[in-house]
């Protein structure tokens, strides 16, 4: 069982594209106007994965520690940028805090994974470092976006509550704690739900891949469990760090949110008082 999955021929790949006929027909039938989006999406997937296939091949062939680490740092930089792009935060001031928040837990957890869970001799072996790293990062991305968006949008919406707590003696960390709690809870909920239902209906992609690649199911299951736990740990730690470290930049020395940290200036909700006075004036 160890020679890996059967390679797919060019004709096989053309057949796989043939599956697109189904969504196309339905799109036309229901006038969804998605044809262009589907074409672009498919095209990007093919090109991006082809590029990944080529450079992963190169990375695995050389298996050079420095090359592997540089690759990891570059994908963490790209992840950090994508996270910021999906929030209302400005890229330039936020890139460093977000990058640090991701690089620290991920590096530690990947090395922990390689050293203690898989127990391999070369902790920086491309096959493990890059695949495990990629899986952790991909999963953290969505979680960190949820956490950051929830945190900052709630802080804007309930800015008066935050300021009231500052006025009652809270320091910045104390006054933002309820906002932090809510955003991390919301971000972790999908992962906890996935862990609770995994395997009931669908087979996780990683496990399927491993079985096709020649692993026995039990090995694939062990990897799946370990990777889920690693994802969960990396997500929790990076959630906390992205919020706490970005706060160092997002608040001024008076502990007030800096509007210039946000791409679209947060819409200031008129206070209830203002609304009342407007009603009174008319």
């Amino acid at each position, binding site marked *: 069982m160890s020679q890996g999955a059967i390679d797919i021929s060019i004709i096989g790949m053309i057949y796989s594209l043939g599956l697109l006929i189904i969504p196309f027909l339905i799109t036309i039938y229901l006038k969804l106007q998605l044809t262009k989006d589907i074409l672009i999406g498919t095209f990007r997937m093919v090109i991006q994965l082809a590029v990944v296939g080529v450079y992963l091949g190169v990375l695995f062939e050389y298996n050079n520690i420095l090359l592997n680490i540089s690759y990891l740092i570059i994908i963490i930089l790209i992840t950090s940028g994508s996270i910021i792009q999906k929030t209302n935060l400005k890229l330039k001031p936020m890139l460093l805090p977000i990058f640090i928040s991701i690089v620290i837990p991920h590096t530690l957890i990947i090395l922990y994974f390689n050293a203690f869970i898989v127990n391999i001799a070369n902790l920086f072996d491309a096959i493990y470092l890059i695949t495990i790293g990629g899986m952790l990062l991909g999963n953290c991305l969505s979680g960190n976006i949820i956490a950051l968006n929830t945190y900052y949008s709630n802080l804007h919406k309930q800015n*008066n509550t935050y*300021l009231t707590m*500052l*006025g009652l003696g809270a*320091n910045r960390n*104390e006054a933002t704690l309820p906002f932090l709690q809510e955003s991390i809870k919301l971000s972790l909920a999908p992962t906890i739900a996935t862990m609770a239902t995994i395997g009931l209906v669908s087979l996780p992609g990683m496990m399927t891949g491993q079985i096709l690649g020649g692993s026995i199911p039990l090995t694939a299951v062990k990897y799946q469990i370990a990777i889920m736990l690693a994802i969960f740990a990396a997500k929790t730690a990076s959630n906390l760090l992205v919020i706490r470290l970005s706060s160092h930049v997002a608040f001024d020395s008076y502990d007030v949110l800096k509007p210039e940290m946000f791409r679209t200036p947060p819409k200031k909700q008129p206070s209830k*008082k203002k609304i009342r006075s407007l009603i009174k004036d008319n």
Partner: protein
Amino acid sequence: MISFHNISLSYPHEKKIFDCFNLTIQQGEKILLKGPSGSGKTTLLKMLLGYVKPTQGTILIDDKELNSNTIHDIRQRLSYISQDVDLPDMSIQTLLDTIYHYQANTSLHPPEEEQLNTLLSTYKLTPSVLKQHTHQLSGGERQRIGIILTHLLNRPIWLLDEITSALDTELKTAAITNLLESNNTILAISHDPQWSAHPKIRTVDISAHNNGGGP
């Protein structure tokens, strides 16, 4: 003592809110800020708290100039309660516990049950209110909780922004009398006539203090 020295404040694309504003408030004074809507009454309180920074000028609180080094100490000398008493959604008891657990408040002793109950009954609340969540309370109930917090924390300077607007006449009078009986410095904003009628109140029309005018 609080003093505003030549304070100017303007937002981009908006008219100047303050232009060379000067005002001095002695310790223990009870000030009622007056001025048309939009004249910057609330902004003045927020400047003391460092929530809004003046474009120019200095603010002194008890001889300390307000800046990023002093703001945290200065904030601990102030209590600010706004009309809406925006509090996080938690039970009043949890809120009290949270506030008394803040690092800056650890030197304070949480109120004895008896003291708390007396305060609650002064403001016609029963101890059962402690179990209720802040978002379940009416505007008037939240204002009373805000007033009770002000009494409990007993900071030297009280900034009270329309905190009696949702109370009935009897409670308004009781609250205003209790607050003004204290030795604390008070800056209040209110449309309730009971404030301006109180003998201890000095009414300050803030528009008269712009352009270097006023005492």
